[in-house]
């Protein structure tokens, strides 16, 4: 039914669409980022600048020396006065070349190194920043886009540093240097030759304006390609099981083609710009030649000077050609920088406190004070929730899907901040705790159970990186994961492949539990954490939980009432409000109660 166009469906926002009005703001933002990245290197940049000036001076001196050779070196020889002047000039040329060589190598090495340093800093900053942004932001932004920012956009900047930087600096200096030298050689002829500069600048300005738009479009379209690609490869199992290949290729064909068209537009712009520069250059050379010939005949200009003119113009226009090629990389780097600066200026909506309240020995007293929460405006998920959990209590939260159970877990783990009210740990608002203190005190295990590439031991040790091998094994034993790990080809040292490939969902859940056990937090949140376990494993985990939870506060979100049985207290949630609250036995006993009903249904399902 659906055409390739409407496969994405509708979403509330598209974060990549910019209106023209904000373009200026964007440029400002990019400039700020660039300045802050370059500031630490300003000393070496000053040296780089000096070196590049020397290099260009040496390069520009050579045609002048040729003129001197022709005008001053040849006449004495024709007059039979020997070649000493010519020899001197040749030696000066060779020395100039040597200076140019040293300066050029120094410039390339130094600017390349600074460039790579800036790139490393940018990579680090971006990664750090993405880490600071809240899960809510990531839900919206999607990991595909984040990956695209951190690979393809960085790559665009890298490419600019690789080739474009050198080319553009040289072009700029050649422009200024040539203009000065032409006027020094002969003012009228120089003015004629420079007559082309306004045209050149106009053409460049046009190109700059047009290609800025074109290149932003290519960045956007390549991001779409990356997002679709990453999702396909991540979900390849579903793709293949449902014969999605053809449709996927159709969709990929479309985003791929969008990217091609965006590129095509950018290429066409260069296709006009480059021959345009060439035409201006050639016309200028021809006019200079004609007018120069007249000036020579009038004796106002020497033949050597005419030759120098032609050489300078050629030297100037030749690289201008390829500048547009480098300019490309500049444009795409500029577009990439815009996006990166946008991400970097994104304020974390779950910000860390600037002056955190220290929490040295967390007890685990939890207090929800008039907490309200809504994902979408005017659609409250929690309304005015008040909840006191004394340290050491095990609280189970039950209720139908969508009742707000997971939201409580996410607020407790500060994945989100409440829309109203406060969540307190040991009397301190979570918003006043440092990230380190908060995460040491509160750990959440979800049904997601992401495993990282690395060994099984590494994955468990994720809970406490300083743990010894013995502690890792002890954690796995306590949770009942030891048996299956010992059965793996290399035990704890078995490498888990990309995205956990070989481990079953239940095994990954056990690893996640061992991880949480090792982390030893004051407050442990289990959000549907046992849903993939078989009955014996769950029983083992249950038994382990009895001891583990004895000394800490726990919030357990579960569909399975079997998990709830170890709780001291049960909270029944309905549409974001607490409808029942009490000890499990008391709730079961209450005639016609909601929990009693759930319990009866569950007992029946076990039949």
């Amino acid at each position, binding site marked *: 039914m659906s055409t390739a166009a409407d496969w994405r469906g509708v979403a509330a926002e598209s974060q990549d669409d910019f209106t023209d009005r904000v373009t200026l703001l964007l440029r400002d933002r990019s400039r700020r980022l660039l300045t802050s990245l370059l500031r630490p290197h300003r000393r070496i940049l000053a040296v780089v600048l000096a070196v590049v000036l020397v290099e260009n001076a040496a390069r520009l001196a050579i045609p002048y020396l040729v003129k001197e050779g022709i005008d001053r070196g040849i006449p004495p020889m024709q007059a039979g006065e020997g070649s000493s002047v010519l020899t001197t000039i040749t030696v000066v040329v060779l020395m100039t*070349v040597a200076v140019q060589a040293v300066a050029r190598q120094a410039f390339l090495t130094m600017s390349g190194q600074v460039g790579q340093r800036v790139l490393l800093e940018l990579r680090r900053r971006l990664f750090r920043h993405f880490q600071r942004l809240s*899960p809510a932001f990531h839900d919206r932004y999607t990991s595909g886009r984040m990956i695209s920012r951190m690979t393809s956009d960085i790559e665009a900047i890298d490419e600019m540093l690789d080739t474009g930087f050198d080319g553009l600096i040289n072009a700029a200096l050649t422009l200024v240097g040539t203009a000065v030298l032409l006027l020094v050689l002969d003012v009228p002829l120089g003015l004629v030759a420079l007559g082309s500069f306004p045209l050149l600048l106009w053409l460049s300005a046009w190109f700059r304006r047009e290609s800025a738009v074109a290149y932003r479009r290519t960045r956007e379209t390549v991001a779409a390609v990356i997002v679709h690609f990453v999702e396909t490869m991540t979900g390849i199992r579903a793709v293949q099981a449902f014969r999605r290949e053809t449709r996927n290729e159709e969709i990929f064909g479309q985003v791929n083609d969008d990217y091609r068209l965006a590129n095509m537009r950018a290429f066409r712009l260069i296709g006009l710009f480059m021959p345009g520069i060439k035409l201006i250059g050639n016309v200028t050379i021809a006019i200079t030649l004609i007018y120069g010939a*007249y000036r020579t005949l009038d004796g106002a200009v020497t033949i050597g000077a005419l030759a120098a003119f032609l050489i300078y113009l050629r030297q100037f226009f030749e690289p201008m050609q390829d500048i547009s090629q480098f300019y490309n990389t500049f444009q795409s780097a500029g577009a990439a920088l815009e996006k990166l600066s946008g991400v970097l200026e994104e304020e974390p909506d779950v910000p860390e406190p600037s002056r955190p309240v220290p929490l040295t020995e967390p007890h685990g007293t939890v207090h929800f004070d008039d907490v309200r929460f809504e994902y979408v405006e005017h659609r409250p998920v929690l309304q005015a929730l008040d909840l006191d959990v004394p340290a050491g209590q095990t609280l189970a939260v039950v209720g139908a899907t969508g009742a707000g159970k997971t939201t409580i877990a996410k607020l407790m783990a500060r994945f989100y901040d409440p829309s109203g009210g406060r969540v307190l740990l040991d009397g301190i608002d979570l918003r006043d705790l440092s990230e380190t203190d908060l995460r040491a005190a509160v750990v959440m295990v979800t049904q997601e159970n992401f495993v990282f590439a690395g060994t099984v031991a590494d994955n468990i040790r994720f809970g406490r990186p300083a743990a010894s091998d013995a502690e890792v094994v002890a954690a796995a034993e306590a949770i009942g994961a030891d048996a299956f790990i010992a059965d793996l080809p290399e035990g704890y040292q078995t490498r888990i492949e990309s995205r956990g490939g070989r481990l079953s969902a239940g095994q990954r859940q056990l690893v996640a539990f061992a991880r949480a056990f090792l982390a030893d937090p004051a407050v442990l949140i289990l959000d549907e954490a046992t849903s993939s376990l*078989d009955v014996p494993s769950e029983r083992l985990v249950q038994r382990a939980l009895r001891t583990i939870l004895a000394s800490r506060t726990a919030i357990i979100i579960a569909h399975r009432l079997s998990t709830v049985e170890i709780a001291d207290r049960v909270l029944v949630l309905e549409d974001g409000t607490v409808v029942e609250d009490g000890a499990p036995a008391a709730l079961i006993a209450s005639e016609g109660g909601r929990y009693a009903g759930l319990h009866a249904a569950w007992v029946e399902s076990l039949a």
Partner: protein
Amino acid sequence: MPPTTVTHPHPAATDPSRRRAGTSLWRLRGYLAPYVWALVVMAVSAVGTVAAALSIPLVVRAIIDGPITSGDRAAIWPLGLLALLLGAVEAGLILLRRWVQASAVLGLETTLRGDLYAKLDSLPMAFHARWQSGQLLSRVTIDLSTIRRFSGFGLLFLVINIIQLFATVAVLLNLYWPLGLVVAIAAVPIIWLSRSFEHGYVVVSRRVQDQQGDVASQVEEAALGMRVIRAFGRRDLAYDKYDRQASQLFDSSVAKVRLSARFWTFLEIIPNVALAIVLLLGAIAVGNGSLSLGTLVAFITLMLSLVWPVASLGVILSMAQEAMTAADRVVEVLDTKSTIVGGDRVLDQPRGRLRFEGVGFAFPDADRPLLRDVDLDVAPGETVAVVGATGSGKTTLTALVPRLYDVTTGRVTIDGVDVRELTIASLRQLVATAFEEPTLFSMSARENVTLGRPDAPEADIREALEVAQASFVHDLPWGLDTRIGEQGMSLSGGQRQRLALARAVLAQPRILVLDDTLSALDVHTEALVEVALRAVLRDATGIVVAHRASTVLLADKVALLEGGTITAVGRHSDLLATVPAYRELLSADADLAGAAA
């Protein structure tokens, strides 16, 4: 060879000369075939451009040696206008070439990317488990644009610059051969250096590319595991891992910078040294009358016109190197043989009798099989529940039916035909799986549900959603057209599972596999889903992976998977009564005891 472990992620990087340089790039030439005419136009206009560019200095010579020497003012104009004309022709030819070139190289890149994607789509799970998708991503983006850049900008300028180099040297030799010889000799060290540079550069650029892939993999892991990293407050750990890779990439990139700096400098210096020599010798020749002044000026102008083509040869050659390694990496994927290839049979009227016959399965590097001697017979319309401890191979067993993995011994048959004899498309139309971890894509809810049957009528979609208790999608802001966030993150675990179940039901398969699909549902919803599923399972052959007694009751019979093989088959109540291991796995006693406490 794909990376098999993380410790040796790039076997090919240690031996870049394994492939003859450029072989892979050459193999991709077929992608240029549709653009043969474009290539011809490009080549012809390139040659024309060089000819026009070469003629201009000769016109200069004619003006200096003619009108300027003789004082004939009228003769300046025709020659000057000729220079103008030649200049305009040169610009016109460049315009033509550029426009033709854009569509050709972008066509090449786009087709190649599409093919790579299609290839990756068809490669089996075993391949995807081995390869980090960051490495695949960098091939589809960075490597392809490297190839595109070379085949458009690089290759053409390589040819143009070489033509220009030879043509200019020929003209120079013709103008005044002793000086021409000096220029020709200056070209020798350039060519020699380029070759030795090529050698070192290929190693370092492959290293940089691979490390870019590693950084991408780290980024991907951090992006996908972001919630776990946050829940445990381990961002420093993740950052350190990333930083190590990024720092290694930095070191290699700096090494690359140093190498190219030396090379580019050298390339720019040699023509200037030659210029000094030409100036000295040429001026001497003019001095003793064996060379005209106009010729010397033309000579120097022509020589200087060589500086840029020769110097940019450095950039282009490094581009060529990068393109070759990029092509290696792309061809590596294109050359991967899919181990799961479909047969040519299609079942006309499938009934759905499913048999496992002596089935064994082992992961490639495992020392013992996960499954062995599995025999199981499921009659058409019958539903069997597979019960076993965590990690006993239940999911793998079900994955063998749609051939997400292939058996290592024995065979799986449908209606007596080995699944390996069926076409992949027809097989996967017969079998649909609802996975425990539902994979949702950032597409509309409709697109997600109709994954296996894009042409499903509205009524069927509605019905499938009802069976899976997934009617909540109608309440989403844009109903079925609402985009489900990446991985369906904006939905709860239970909602995601129900959507995935609706997807499997909508596919109307002969064989329906439910891989612990209901684990995240609450008791109430689960009961509703089960009632509806019973009706669906009456018409289809079913395999249900189950942990709970309630789910097992969906099935007509139960198979107990223990130690990699099926140890008991029978009715739930019989097994409960007679098989202790089964009782241990599924008995409700312990739960009830706990609940009552």
